[in-house]
């Protein structure tokens, strides 16, 4: 068995019996402010073979896809096509070299026909640049038949079901004489039967000699259709080899077996009495029979793959959506939560994942952002007491060590880290009993991450009950007293103590 755990080691040469890779990345580095997304990674794709790219969220898979398709420019390293170095300054250049991607969320146009969607941007033309509709229709039909899709190219896209839309996306990817096809979580939105059809399609593409990069979290599917694997972790190349020479356990170990690079605050957790009890929360399409209890001073982690229904459940708990069934008890009392306003009144607050979109109101001054959910306490009969507002805003911004010229400053003019502090101050000012943090450190740099972790520990120490939704295994392991793993809308496991290991988390989340 060939495995390479060293980041700086080159890919195994013995495994490359298939000759020169169609497309190869060698020592690619890509940094964003504060984050090194890719650190000298290598990836090789061979004609007629499926290579699975495996890694946790944040391992650098998406960045690699964007580098391969000309959306990002690498800071260092080389891209080789048939062994010759090339550059992809734009997405068109990548397409011209035969690299094409089918994205997680397919980018198609509902109001255009199937043929137009397939050839948008590179339609066959007559003289004077007019579109040759007839040959476009004919070629679209050819491509669709080639992948076994029975779709009339003249159909409007909006009239197709999700699975057929996906086939159109694949046809679009193939319409540019693709040699390399990148499939980024292609089965995420498909039913069981559709997934089988996709596997057949992948086999067809292999037979046509295309090199396929297959990105997936699902181990069953990786072992079913991939010929090779490449593992990334934290933006580093960990190892690669033939699927036939590795098993699931070894692959999981390569994925998560990290040396702990992050330091988490040392917590003496001493959970107090029960604050929140959730019983049988269900939703027709998103989650089923979610139940747990939460104590004062406890940090409860929610782990799962993207799309496991964690955020959807939290939104129901916070009253944004209504569960079809289920009961919430706060300190033993039945709590009615039909809207966010009622949740806040009951002492439950939710710090959403997308702080840009769902967090701060950037045109508003700092103090108004902070007091927005607490206006009940800083107003009388609908009239605001500005002095009270300033006092409250000052108290909580100072607690978070927020530095700004004045509390009158619009939040939009603050740096990202400071905006985050405003959002957190806003929620603390409501004096909550339960705080739900959805991906609290997503997209922020290491330094700020440590500050957020420190702060979470402090909140718990003050007796607040914390629910932390996170997709990062180190964060889940480093911060939680207890972890609930969700898979496909259900609780897959509740783990604590010695059961809490990277392997158990991944196993329960992926269902292996």
């Amino acid at each position, binding site marked *: 068995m060939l495995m390479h755990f060293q980041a700086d080691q080159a890919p195994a040469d013995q495994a490359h019996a298939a000759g020169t890779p169609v497309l190869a990345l060698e020592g690619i580095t890509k940094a964003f402010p504060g984050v090194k997304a890719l650190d000298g990674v290598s990836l090789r794709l061979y004609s007629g073979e499926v290579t699975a790219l495996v890694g946790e969220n944040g391992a650098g898979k998406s960045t690699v896809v964007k580098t391969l398709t000309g959306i990002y420019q690498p800071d260092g390293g080389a891209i080789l096509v048939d062994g010759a170095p090339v550059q992809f300054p734009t997405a068109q250049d990548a397409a011209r070299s035969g690299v094409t991607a089918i994205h997680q969320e397919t980018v198609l146009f509902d109001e255009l026909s199937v043929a137009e969607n397939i050839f948008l941007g590179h339609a066959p033309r007559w003289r004077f640049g007019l579109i040759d509709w007839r040959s476009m229709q004919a070629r679209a039909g050819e491509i669709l038949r080639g992948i076994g899709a029975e779709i009339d190219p003249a159909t409007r896209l909006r009239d197709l079901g999700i699975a057929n839309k996906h086939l159109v996306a694949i046809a679009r990817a193939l319409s540019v004489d693709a040699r390399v096809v990148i499939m980024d979580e292609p089965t995420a939105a498909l039913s069981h039967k559709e997934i089988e059809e996709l596997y057949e399609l992948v086999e067809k593409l292999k037979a046509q000699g295309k090199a396929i990069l297959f990105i997936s979290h699902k181990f069953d599917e990786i072992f079913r259709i991939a010929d090779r694997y490449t593992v990334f972790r934290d933006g580093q190349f960990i190892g690669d080899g033939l699927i036939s020479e590795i098993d699931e356990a070894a692959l999981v170990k390569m994925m998560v077996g990290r040396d702990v690079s992050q330091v988490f605050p040392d917590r003496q957790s001493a959970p107090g009495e029960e604050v929140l009890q959730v019983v049988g929360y269900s939703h027709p399409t998103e989650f089923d029979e979610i139940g747990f209890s939460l104590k004062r001073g406890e940090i409860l982690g929610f782990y799962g793959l993207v799309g496991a229904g964690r955020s959807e459940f939290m939104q129901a708990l916070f009253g*944004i959506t209504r569960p079809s069934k289920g009961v919430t008890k706060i300190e033993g009392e039945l709590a009615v939560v039909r*809207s*966010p306003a009622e949740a806040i009144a009951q002492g439950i607050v939710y710090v*959403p994942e*997308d702080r840009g979109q*769902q967090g701060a*109101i950037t045109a508003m001054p700092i103090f108004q952002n902070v007091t927005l959910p607490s206006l009940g306490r800083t107003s009388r009969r*609908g009239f*605001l007491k500005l002095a009270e507002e300033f006092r409250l805003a000052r108290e909580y911004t100072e607690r978070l060590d927020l530095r700004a010229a004045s509390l009158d400053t619009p939040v939009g003019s603050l*740096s990202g880290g400071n905006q985050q502090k405003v959002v957190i101050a806003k929620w603390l000012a409501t004096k909550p009993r339960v705080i739900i943090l959805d991906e609290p450190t997503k997209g922020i740099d290491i330094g700020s991450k440590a500050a957020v972790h420190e702060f979470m520990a402090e909140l718990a120490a003050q007796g607040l009950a914390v629910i932390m939704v996170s997709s990062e295994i180190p964060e889940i392991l480093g911060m939680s007293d207890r972890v609930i793993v969700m898979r496909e809308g259900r609780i897959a496991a509740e783990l604590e103590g010695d059961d809490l290991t990277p392997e158990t988390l991944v196993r329960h989340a992926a269902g292996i």
Partner: protein
Amino acid sequence: MLQRLISSREALLLGAIAVLLALIATRFPGFIAPGNLAHVFNDTSPLILLAIGQMIVILTKCIDLSVAANLALTGMVVAMINVSFPGVPVAVILAVALALGTLMGMVNGLLVWKLQIPPIVVTLGTMTIFRGIIFLISDGKWVNSHEMSEGFKAFPRAELLGLPMLSWVALVAVAVFAVVMTRTRLGRAFYAVGGNPHAAVYTGLDVGRTQFWAFTISGALAGITGYLWVSRYAVAYVDIAGGFELDVVAACVIGGISIAGGVGTVGGALLGALFLGVIKNALPVVDISPFWQLAISGAAIIIAVAVNARAARVKGRIILKSAEQAA
């Protein structure tokens, strides 16, 4: 602080109005006599009233195109009441106008809130419906000056401390809504909902309900203005204030109210309306044809939007630490 005051949109607009007045004064000095300025203000009062309502609606990321039709329908109804029951006191007429306008605003608000129809579609529809109702109840006939009672016509002209009632109503509305927007929870909610609807939801605000209140206020102001308009011009017919909704939106845009929502002040709406009012009143006296008048109003709108867009760009995120200190 001083710098912020000078660079604020309101100050910029006030400066623009001053420059405009100075230019007009070089050709027609009488224009800037206090008496004439008071006249210009009075003439602009209906626009000010509607612009305040429209500003609140635009703040919540909506638009109300039905204000002029609301005004016309309310005006027609109170005029017909006056014709049939000349004895009904002005106070009652005002109450009826306020109630009727409010009701129409609520209809808009409910359609936006409960059925989630885009506001531009809702108000385009109700605009046509309101005009249609005027036609139905009036048979397309005019209510003329001689049919109206003296008391009915006298109210907007009645003077208090040298200013006509019409001006006073506008001034009171400016004062009341300046307080509402800056000192009440409802006012704060308008800014929050328009500034970032997603974030507003998480802070416990009901976006739809807040938009409902914005339309309700806009309707109430249009209703009051309906009576004032009809009694001032002493005539009511189907097409009064036709196209006036566009002047109202224009006043808001010139006044720095962001069409994207969440940014704007009562002062901005007031100054935007006055800017248009000055142009409309001045151009005839400085002998510029009405065609130029339209072109100049249009140019003012585009310039205002361009200036606002620039201001918004400059206000992007400051990344450099040194720049953050300086700002």
